[in-house]
């Protein structure tokens, strides 16, 4: 890091403007979640009443539960599928259709969410599946697997292939070698990838609206539908909690991947 150089006034101003653009709205949202009044834009003193009312809001709490569960399950599925894909890309060498496979794996990274959502909806309808929690989980796992692949693959290519060969050479069959040697070496990336997939699932509104059914409404969906009926400070409160959770998970993922947690090496 180039911390030795001093921040000039121009750079400082640019930095401040950038941060303001990004975070002022969020800051306002967070501050007004502690507003005592009913009006969203009129300040009338500090209070935790909207957080308290949140605790009594069954619908919100149910949605929070659905969101967390869907995030955890879909992140786990995505981790398995995405790691498998990364393994093939990093280790299987050249095979017929490798470029096509790599392309297909990474498509969800650039595909508009609406398209993913519609295609999943059509698939579920075609298969005559009732939409609900399971379809929500499958939908989230299928698009976040691509992100897992990116993160795990980038780590996997830095792992010396001969370390795995050494394990084979010492009598450990391939599957055992994967779990005894490869997984411990890529564990930080896998943990970061899981956390990333979890946040992606938490954040998602578009795909969830297509993929889920009446029994499983996620928090972003609930917030969105309530906003259409008018914004209450309760929305600010839930959003603030949500932002805190996502920021926390992202920070954790970055720390894990940098090896600052669960020390790498």
């Amino acid at each position: 890091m180039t911390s030795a150089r001093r921040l000039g006034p121009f750079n400082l101003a640019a930095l401040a403007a950038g941060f303001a653009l990004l975070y002022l709205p969020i800051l306002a949202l967070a501050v007004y979640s502690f507003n005592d009044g009913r009006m969203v834009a009129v300040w009338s003193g500090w209070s935790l009443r909207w957080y308290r009312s949140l605790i009594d809001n069954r619908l919100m709490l149910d949605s929070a539960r659905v969101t967390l569960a869907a995030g955890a399950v879909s992140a786990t599925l995505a981790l398995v599928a995405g790691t498998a894909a990364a393994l093939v890309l990093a280790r299987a060498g050249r095979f017929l259709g490798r470029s096509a496979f790599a392309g297909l794996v990474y498509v969800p990274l650039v595909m508009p969410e609406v398209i993913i959502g519609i295609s999943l909806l059509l698939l579920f309808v075609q298969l005559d599946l009732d939409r609900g929690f399971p379809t929500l989980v499958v939908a989230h796992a299928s698009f976040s697997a691509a992100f897992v692949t990116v993160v795990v693959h980038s780590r996997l290519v830095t792992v010396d292939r001969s370390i795995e060969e050494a394990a084979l050479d010492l009598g450990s069959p391939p599957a055992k070698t994967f779990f005894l040697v490869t997984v411990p070496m890529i564990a930080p990336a896998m943990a970061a990838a899981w956390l990333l997939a979890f946040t992606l699932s938490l954040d998602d509104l578009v795909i969830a609206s297509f993929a889920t059914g009446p029994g499983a409404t996620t928090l972003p969906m609930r917030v969105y539908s309530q906003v259409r009926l008018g914004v209450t400070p309760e929305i600010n409160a839930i959003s603030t909690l949500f932002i805190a959770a996502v920021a926390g998970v992202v920070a954790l993922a970055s720390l894990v991947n940098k090896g600052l947690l669960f020390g790498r090496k």
Partner: protein
Amino acid sequence: MAPAFLAIDEVAKSFAGVSAVDGVTLAIERGEIFALLGPSGCGKSTLLRMIAGFEAPDAGRIVLDGEDLGPLPPYRRPVNMMFQSYALFPHMTVAGNIAFGLKQEGLPAPAIGRRVAEMLRLVRLEGLAERRPHQLSGGQRQRVALARALAKRPKLVLLDEPLAALDRKLREETQFELLAIHRRLGTTFVIVTHDQDEAMTLAHRLAVMDRGRVVQVGPPREVYEHPATRFVATFIGTANLLDGRVTDAAGGVMRVESAAAAAELSVLHDGAVPPGAAVSVAVRPEKLRLGNGMENTLTGEVEELAFRGDATLCRVRLSSGVPVTLSLPNRERTGAFLPRPGERTRLGFAAADAVLLTS
């Protein structure tokens, strides 16, 4: 003849149509240190990886102690390898690394503990059992890798450039250590190296490889003193090659008319070479001497001197314009015996000290 301990029979391998190993046949004896020596890309590493089981030969067989290794995957072969990068498991301790192979064998824990302790003693790392690889020096890592490869008591140990990553001083010590360990265990070692010094000091016998083929096999001294081809003569040590044509062969002495030497040379040679054949006369720098009175005498002008401690390398341009290198041992401290650059000098070599090369 009894079959060899490790018999490599007409083994071939190509990658994407490019031949890496091209019909190699070798017989390696039990307890031997055998070196595969050659420049990078000569196929020696591919051959080693085929013995370990990481590559499958396109043709030919590899038989170890009567057992065809072909159908065995790497994790079932009684062969262990020490990798050039050492390939230590970063998330395991030194003891964990050494124990890894023993655990795969299903050895009971007390037996594993004893074997690990024995291996640590063998490579003199007793105090470091609980260290992680990144806490070790390069030389210590090298010894952990060696201990790990020896721990399962394999029939055959493969060493891929075992000393390449060590600095010069450590290298010399480690060479002798490796020889002592080999003497104690008696395991068969196959070493791959591009470094002729490493091959010559360690190996009982070596195979010189070039472009996927074995060019010559023999003890280091024999390969050095009787190189079979120009490639071997120049790859192992240095050699002055004087090109010419055979004019006469009588009583084991070849007469070679050499324009490069601007002289007719006599060389001892056993085989039959027809008169008129194009040959090279190879003379090692230390076999060339300054002065008169040898069977072959040349003249030239001293160009450069390079002091090397034990010897001084002296570059002489012969009257034909061809440069040759002499190695003059520094037997006196004054250096008064050395010629000066620009000086005209006579130099020569004995008929028995040169080698006639036809290919």
